[in-house]
């Protein structure tokens, strides 16, 4: 006797004959819910070729064509639910928010450069000059436009602040340890680059150390260039503020701690304040000038 579980129901077979079946009605929603809730075991390859035949035999559908159209409707319904669930994940929101911040930063840089050029132009044309030039119609509209341009940049940086507050809020909720060690924004960037907190938690520290340095990493792997010391974590004040000769060691230590923090966050969500103190202590030790006694 064999029991086979398919998307449209459970069928019991004895000597290749259907003896019992529990097949749902052609209700798309109910079938999609079943796909989500039930556990399905592997089934024998010989039954896999008989799905259509069995469904028709059990009067679930009158023809192969109807089999496909029902299956398709159920699959589309289920896929939509899965997609909605994936987008509802807090990681997705954090990734989009930090992406927004990075885009705004880039835009502000661009626009600020342009504003500087406009400033210079205005300064030059407002100098005393002959009459024909002061009647340039541009002179009346130009400062107003420039003012509005500057205001847009101002508004963007206000928006950036709001987004950054939102990230801080979300990061405290889903990754308290990573936030305390890396800072909310850097933590969020690491999550974004890893593709989610779970993937970050599964990464080895050595990989976290070079997230964001893939160009240098592949140059190293492909052509034997020097390996990168740090990727995104260079943004951390403890790395950036350390002397060049110590940065590699410090980046390595920090990456190790960040890996622990990400795992604590993903698997327990409890804050461990001692982690930050440990990391700072270790970095202070590394930053101490080496004495002759240390070397020997």
């Amino acid at each position, binding site marked *: 006797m064999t029991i086979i579980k398919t998307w449209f129901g459970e069928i019991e077979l004895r000597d290749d004959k259907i003896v019992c079946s529990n097949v749902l009605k052609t209700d798309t929603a109910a079938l999609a819910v079943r796909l989500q809730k039930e556990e399905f075991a592997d089934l024998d390859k010989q039954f896999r070729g008989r799905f259509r035949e069995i469904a028709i035999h059990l009067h679930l559908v009158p023809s192969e064509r109807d089999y496909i159209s029902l299956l*398709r409707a159920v699959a589309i319904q289920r896929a939509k639910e*899965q997609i909605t669930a994936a987008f509802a994940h807090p990681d997705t929101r954090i990734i989009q928010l930090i992406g927004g911040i990075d885009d705004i930063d880039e835009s502000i840089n661009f626009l600020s450069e342009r504003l500087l050029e406009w400033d210079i132009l205005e300064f030059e044309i407002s100098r005393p000059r002959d009459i024909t030039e002061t009647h340039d119609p541009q002179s009346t509209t130009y400062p107003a436009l420039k003012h509005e341009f500057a205001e847009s940049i101002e508004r963007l940086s206000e928006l950036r602040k709001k987004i950054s507050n939102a990230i801080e809020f979300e990061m405290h909720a889903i990754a308290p340890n990573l936030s305390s060690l890396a800072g909310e924004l850097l933590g969020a960037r690491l999550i974004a680059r890893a593709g989610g907190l779970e993937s970050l938690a599964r990464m080895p520290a050595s990989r976290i150390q070079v997230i964001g340095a893939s160009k240098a990493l592949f140059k190293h792997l492909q052509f034997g260039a020097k390996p990168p010391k740090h990727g995104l974590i260079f943004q951390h004040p403890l790395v950036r503020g350390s002397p060049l000769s110590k940065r590699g060691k410090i980046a390595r230590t920090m990456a190790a701690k960040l890996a622990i923090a990400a795992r604590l966050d993903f698997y327990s969500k409890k804050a461990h304040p001692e982690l930050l103190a440990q990391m700072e202590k270790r970095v202070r030790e590394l930053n101490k000038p080496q004495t002759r006694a240390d070397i020997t």
Partner: protein
Amino acid sequence: MTIRTHKVAGVFMLDSHLATKGDALYGEKVFGEYRLWNPQRSKLAALLKKEENVPLRPEQIVLYLGAASGTTVSHLANIVSLVYAVEFAPRVARDLVRLSERLKNVVPLVADAVRPDYGHIVELVDFLYQDIAQPNQAEIAITNAEIFLKTGGYACVMIKARSIDVTAKPKAVYKREVKKLKEQLDIMCVHELEPFYKAHAAVIARLA
């Protein structure tokens, strides 16, 4: 313009342009009832442009792993009877689902081909098409072929050398991957997809 049929039924050559018959779905160019199929946007189109002997037939059921937003799926659906399209990433799966709503013979599945959990949905298939740029793509192809491919069915595996080993020469990577596939499948041919795709090759195999 001259229109001729390709050796694969359902595929047409409009002068040197590849096309299938159907409604335009993603903004591709259209000539009457023909939708042009850009070999730089689809590895299958690149393969069909380079090689006419591809074992695709109108009555086949296809399992497509790595469907992405469904550009290739939409053309394949014009050629074969049914496509089970598997895609894991929610962002592109969203586009795939929208496309499936307009194609009567595409069944979209949001799932991970590495751990196939669609065994209770997908029936036996005649053709396994795989386009997932993963280091272990050969293993993924074999796993899925063992579960879903009919005896005597075909598999087409698109190998992206750069996703498997950036440090090795593409030809060496193809060789290694073909060797892995050979353990379970009979290799029929290997085609590099230059000039349409750099460091990509299509392997066509058969399950004995």
